């Protein structure tokens, strides 16, 4: 526990300098943020080929301008219920991890926000362990919270 706490504190210390830019995405009712520097693409999902036998959070593979992208279902990853209408009309955030292309499927992509580091808080201690694993921390926005996705953690589990 203390080790994690220390790490979070040092992260916090680093984050205290200046501001960062985030793209906000909606997954179910939750507002999430992905750091702009992590994002390669934002695109709407047109067709998706399911991969039988793959882990449940892998929604399938898709063709993004001639590249094959592995799609990760953010809802599944966060333990949220599936959308009743399936993957149709979903958006994807394209990221690169270990030289491979992944797309994180989200319900909606919002806006780009520049957030001051002072607003950043570490994960609340009572956060669900699945969420804690993929969350870097939380920003206090007006009226709601924005959870910062830890892309590396999110994908590492999928790739493991």
């Amino acid at each position, binding site marked *: 526990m203390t080790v994690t706490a220390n790490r979070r504190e040092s992260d916090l210390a680093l984050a205290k300098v200046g501001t960062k830019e985030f793209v906000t995405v909606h997954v179910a009712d939750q507002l999430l943020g992905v750091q702009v520097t992590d994002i390669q693409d934002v695109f709407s999902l047109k*067709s998706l*080929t*399911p*991969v*039988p*036998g*793959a*882990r449940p959070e*892998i929604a399938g*593979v*898709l*063709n993004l301008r*001639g590249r*094959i992208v*592995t799609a*990760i279902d953010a809802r599944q990853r966060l333990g949220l219920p599936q959308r009743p209408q399936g993957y149709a009309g979903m958006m994807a955030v394209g990221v690169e991890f*270990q030289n*491979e*292309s*992944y797309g994180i499927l989200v319900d909606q992509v919002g806006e780009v926000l520049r957030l001051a580091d002072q607003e950043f808080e570490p994960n609340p201690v009572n956060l669900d362990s699945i969420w804690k694993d993929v969350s870097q921390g939380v920003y206090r926005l007006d009226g709601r919270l924005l959870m910062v996705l830890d892309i590396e953690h999110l*994908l590492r589990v*999928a*790739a493991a």
Partner: protein
Amino acid sequence: MDELLGEFITETNEFLETVDTQLVVFEADPTDGETLNSIFRLVHTIKGTCGFLGLPRLQFLAHAGETLLGKFRDGTLVATPDQVQLVLESIDRIKEILAGLEANGTEPQGDDRDLIGALERAAEGEDAQDSHTQNGQDAAPEPHQPAQSNAAPGQVEVAAANSTRWDADLGRELRPGEVSLADLEAAFRSATPDDENEAQAASSPNTPSDSAKDSDLPIGLGVAGVRLSEPEALIIKEDEEDIAIKGTAVASNQTIRVNVEVLETLMTMVSELVLTRNQLMQMVRNVTDSEFKGPLQRLSAVTAELQDSVMKTRMQPIGSAWKKLPRIVRDAARDLGKKIDLIMDGEATELDRQVLELIKDPLTHMIRNSCDHGLENPTARIAAGKSETGIIRLNAYHEGGHIVIEVSDDGSGLATSRIREKAIKNNIVTEEQAWTLSDAQIHRFIFAPGFSTAATVTSLSGRGVGMDVVRTNIELIGGTIDLQSTEGRGTKFFIKIPLTLAIVSALVVGSRKQRFAIPQLSIVELVGAGAASDHKVEILNSARVLRLRDRLLPLVDLSEVLGVAPNEHMESEALSSFVVVMQQSGQLFGVVVDEVFDTEEIVVKPLSKALTNVGTFSGATILGDGSVIMIIDPACVYRRVGQVEDVVEEIEADVQKSRDQRLETTSMIVFQAGGEQPKAVPLSLVTRLEELDATSFEQGDGRTLVQYRGELMPIVAADPYSTIVTSGVQPVLVFTYNGEAAGMAVDKIVDIVEEPLHVEMAADRPGLTGIAVLKGKATEILDVGHYLSLALNNWDDPTRNQPGKHIVLVERNPFFRNLLSPLLRAAGYEVEAVDTVSAALVCAEYRKPSAVLTDIDADVASARRLLHDERLSGTTIVALSGSPDADATGFASLVRKSDRESLIAAIEMASKLEIAA
């Protein structure tokens, strides 16, 4: 790393490969001045460049080698195998240093004095080497009993040299080329500035002490560095067209060096271009009148050409992967005391360099295997009536988008019985199963993990990791490996690999509304298995099988393999589905798919790490319509089938058992010929039913002939009263035996019935086995053998005989089983026809037969089990063979399969003996 150094390393490595090959050629013919010249030039170039780049170790070694080669060149010395060995050793050392150089950018630390010394010593023209070689055996270092006691005058020098090879400081014998500490010190002391010789003069001035050592040491050394082994003969036969060696110099100014990475990028880009082109084509295809059509057509053509050219840049002749082999064979021959000829054909056959790299190691391993296990030693070869020199043959050729590499030897072949024993011992098969497998199936066990039949482990091979790894490596690149082996005659391996890994031809199939690609290479055929089709998917105790021609094919549903199988679809799918017959590891199996779309050239894209652990897929690809589909890994499907197969085997055994208990039914094909009365022959004897155009019939040698599948096939009428039609269509039953086909012309094919065959009336004319009731009608059962003899002139007439008793016929070949059992039955015997010895023994448990007829061609060892089994004590065992001089020691008599008269006589004799007893 320095660019200059990098280039030097690449270039030198290439040079060295050439030198290796050429030295072996030179060794076989020391008078070949041209080869020697080119070796000399290459070594000289290496030396020169090393000096320029400041690589002292390499330079000194190359220099010493060059000096020796120079002596060969001006005729001062005639090369002996040992001297060539010495040069080869120094080449090896240079390679070692180069490897170090490549890894670290600097020459690795090390001491080459031993080799340089030996080389210079050899260059001095020490005659001792010759006598040493001749007496190599007796003069082998024996530290405790020095050789001088019985040395002949000519050997004194050798013996003396040998006596110094025991080193007290080290407490062991000196290795070839090693210098004792005492010698070293002595050499240091005796070294004076005037002692310089050629070597020192050429060495770089900043390392004078090193070169002093180098030049001085050999004098105190005797003949260190000369390996003691028999001279061996090794001839490399090069294709005359092969330019790999002789034409290098000419071709070089036509080529440039391009970094492989550039080519890889180029290939990737072209792949992308191909995909985009496909997408565009797909889009335009849906529009009837588009202005894009023309330009697109051109784009398409250019893209195809570009793809071809880029592929070509990646293509390399397979000969470049073979360059190392002559040396490997030579060394192996030397170490093993064998004489081996390596013959290489089709070196110019080109394939993708990526594939080339991947097959190098498996090939090397297989060649080593052939040298070590495949070929016998000279004495054994002479004893077996073969020439003393064994031949290993490498052959490569293209075959429909694939390259086939054959590796064959004329050695002892695989020992079937030993592999069988070992397979049983290693629990790969049960003993019962092992005896039912064909020889070819048993041979394939050598590809099983941890399988080695070598009695002893040698330095070369025999540790049992070999063929398994070879197979895995080849399957990894989508290839297949198979073998053919005849005991005593040799073994031949067939490796089939795709030309390139980047673009493969694949069949797009649908399962559960999703499309998948299956690589063409693993597909044997496609069978429609719907309700309207001849082939039916049958369900035996939850395992599905397909009856395809004469075998049961285990089936697996693709959706099951993928884990998306909702079982309630089982029945509807059995109605309309396709079976993709695939082959993997020599096993055939069927994969049930719902739909079959098209074959496409697909660009294989690797899967992300998140997907590699799924294991079912080898990659993904983008189709022309832009959708992504997964590529099925055939090996994975095969593993799934393996689980199904056990069930199928069980069922087959059950079926066999119940068949043994019930009356044996025979499938008969019923037809009409020369009248209304139905005639029939066993269906299993018929290879094909054809309707041939009567105008294509020709007359020759008093027979009617037809050109059938590229060969002349004789046709005989099924009845003396029927005639072969001269116009229109003639239905023909085609029989094949031993690769020869014969046709039987009939008027009309009526039906196929499956009933217990009771030949009720024995025949009274040739060509008729008897009359049986089939489907309530008296039907003439024709004697196929008679017609074969009419057509092919090599069958004897049948003979009638008196009734006898219960007979067991053991015959693996279904043709003979089906041919002989009706014959024997017609002669009044009760016949139990089984395909294995084990099954025969089971029969005997229930009811002791009066005679057992057993085939001894397929597996004489297992047939002999019959002789010693107590269940058959007192029973006459008659050996059946296709050849009159087969070894039938121990059997009551030997009968030729085609010789019916003797067969019946032998059985009669047996039953009389039984009566007498």
